[in-house]
């Protein structure tokens, strides 16, 4: 190597970005120390953690990124609740599918997944008010979780639908998972209501966009919610379908204001501008979920640590001391 080239390489080597040293600041070390205590404590000595996955159609695939980041960090999740697309991802996660498979699933879906959307069915919908069927959602889910029942999932799971005749919120905690999840993401105005257990069920996002209450019903004492609301201020509906969806989103966001207050911690990936037909942005949504979760992780840990201290304290007595 000639001299200028060698010098250039040396210069390049020296100027490469400096690596970070381990963070030994008081807060970082204390967080790490207390987090270890939370992770190692028996379940009775920390709050039961509920992961809440909001509705949000295609945007909600961002939950996959959030779950991936939480799993990477070893964040304890004792139970899962979801609505609509949050229910689909939540059901798979609660059934034991690892984040990589969730990602594979999410990247494989498109606008036509989970329904019988074809040119003919769309014309029937628009001209003759013939609603689409969401049966494919159930079939798609069964491919991944089989015929699992709620009492067979690895983590307790609940999902939410709405009875379109009574307007009641229906929280499913037993029976067949795939049917309940299908009901939970059965978008009104597009899909036929599902008749199940003497009720006519449509998407739970209308009444329970962020199902914190469902997680609490499962016994969660501390909830972390992944919220993928639409930013309806940026969208301009241009047809009947988009107008309908916009109204549902606005209604959902009004409802979710209260639900946000009930969650102990919120991770909100910036996916509000992703429309329900933009399936080419799925990877972007997943990555945004992962990035936001990673950015909020330390704060989430701190929140759970502080909530755990009263219970952890019970094991900090003199008996813990080992002979020295």
């Amino acid at each position, binding site marked *: 190597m000639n001299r200028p080239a060698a010098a250039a390489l040396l210069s390049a080597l020296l100027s490469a*970005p400096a690596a970070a040293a381990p963070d030994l600041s008081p807060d970082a070390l204390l967080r790490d120390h207390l987090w270890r205590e939370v992770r190692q404590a028996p379940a009775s000595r920390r709050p039961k953690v509920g992961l809440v996955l909001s509705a949000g159609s295609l945007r909600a695939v961002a939950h996959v990124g959030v779950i991936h980041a939480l799993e990477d960090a070893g964040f304890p999740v004792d139970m899962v609740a979801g609505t609509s697309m949050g229910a689909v991802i939540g059901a798979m996660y609660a059934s034991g599918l690892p984040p990589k498979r969730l990602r594979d699933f999410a990247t494989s879906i498109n606008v036509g997944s989970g329904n019988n959307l074809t040119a003919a069915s769309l014309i029937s919908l628009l001209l003759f008010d013939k609603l689409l069927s969401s049966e494919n959602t159930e079939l798609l889910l069964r491919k991944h979780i089989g015929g699992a029942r709620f009492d067979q999932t690895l983590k307790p799971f609940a999902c939410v639908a709405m009875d379109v005749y009574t307007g009641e919120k229906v929280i499913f905690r037993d029976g067949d998972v795939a049917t309940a999840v299908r009901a939970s993401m059965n978008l009104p105005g597009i899909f036929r209501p599902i008749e199940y257990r003497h009720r006519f069920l449509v998407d739970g996002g209308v009444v329970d966009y962020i199902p914190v209450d469902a997680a609490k019903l499962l016994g969660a004492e501390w909830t972390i919610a992944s919220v993928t609301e639409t930013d309806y201020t940026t969208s301009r509906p241009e047809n009947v379908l988009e107008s309908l969806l916009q109204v549902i989103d606005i209604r959902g966001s009004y409802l979710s204001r209260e639900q946000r207050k009930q969650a102990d911690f919120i991770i909100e990936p910036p996916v509000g501008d992703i429309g329900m037909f933009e399936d080419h942005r799925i990877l972007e949504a997943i990555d945004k979920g992962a990035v936001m979760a990673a950015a909020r992780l330390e704060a989430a840990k701190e929140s759970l640590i502080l909530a755990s201290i009263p219970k952890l304290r019970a094991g900090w007595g003199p008996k813990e001391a*080992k002979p020295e």
Partner: protein
Amino acid sequence: MRSLSCGVWKGHFLALWLGQPLLILLLMAGPARAWRLWGEPSDKKIRPVQELADARKSAEVVAALTPDFMQTLRGTDLRQAYVLKGDGLSALGRVDEALGVYQLGVRLFPKNVDLLTRQGDVLHSTGLDEQARAFYLRALIYEPRHFGAHLGLAEIDRRLGFFDRSASHYEIALETLEKRADVWRSYAETLLAQRDWTTAELAIARAISLDGQNADGHVLTAFARRAQGDLPGALAALDEAQARGAGVGARRARALWLVEAGKPAEALAQADAVLKEVPGDGAALWARARALISLGRDSDARRVLANLADPARFDLAARAARGLGSALAAPGDPR
């Protein structure tokens, strides 16, 4: 034999007959690119400046590379001048000016990976990771395994929480930077975040073999051992780090980890030592309070916590102390 020799001559003649016009055409068609045939033009004017840069005399490098002087340079000299001036300004902490120089350099030499990665580095160092990523990716188009671009992308992905992608970039960067202990340590930190303890320990061992006197490698060993449940091993590694001049952070960690190891008396002594160095240190005060609770001295612990829970403090230790103070004072407290 004669006919063969004759054939060879004919072949040479044909090659010359066809080759000469081709060469002339090539030179006429692309004079700007013709230097590629024998290398970029260089008047060697950059050499004295390069020597200043090699001697790390950044201020002199910047002073030497005046706009007037740079106008006299061409080819590799000019490209290297932008690199050296940018590096010099960066080393002097004049990051904004360095960015301007690299930007100008990239406009003139848009395919130069050194300038592209340096612009990425400056943007990355100022937190503009998305813009930095674009420059690193552009550099990888021209040199797919460029260590600087991969190192920058590794750091960005680690910051964003994409540990698997980050580890892959580090692995490529380390093919070139295999002697850089700090990069091995960063790679190890990424692996620790992924909870890949075994590979992390191998990476740390490599870092220590390259730079055994650096305390950070031993601190990382301590974290890796503790993560695998080997607290005595972790404490021993912290001692190694302290023997190599680790700062108060290692002693702070030791105080907390002695609590975890169920050695409250030692934890108390270590916490007191840290508090002598850093009065009011949140982690040390917490370690002190926890050690006192473990020793059954709850009233002493409450005093420490009351001090720590000062309403003017908002660090984690203070917030945790408020919670623990309430729990200690709660009725039915098993004192």
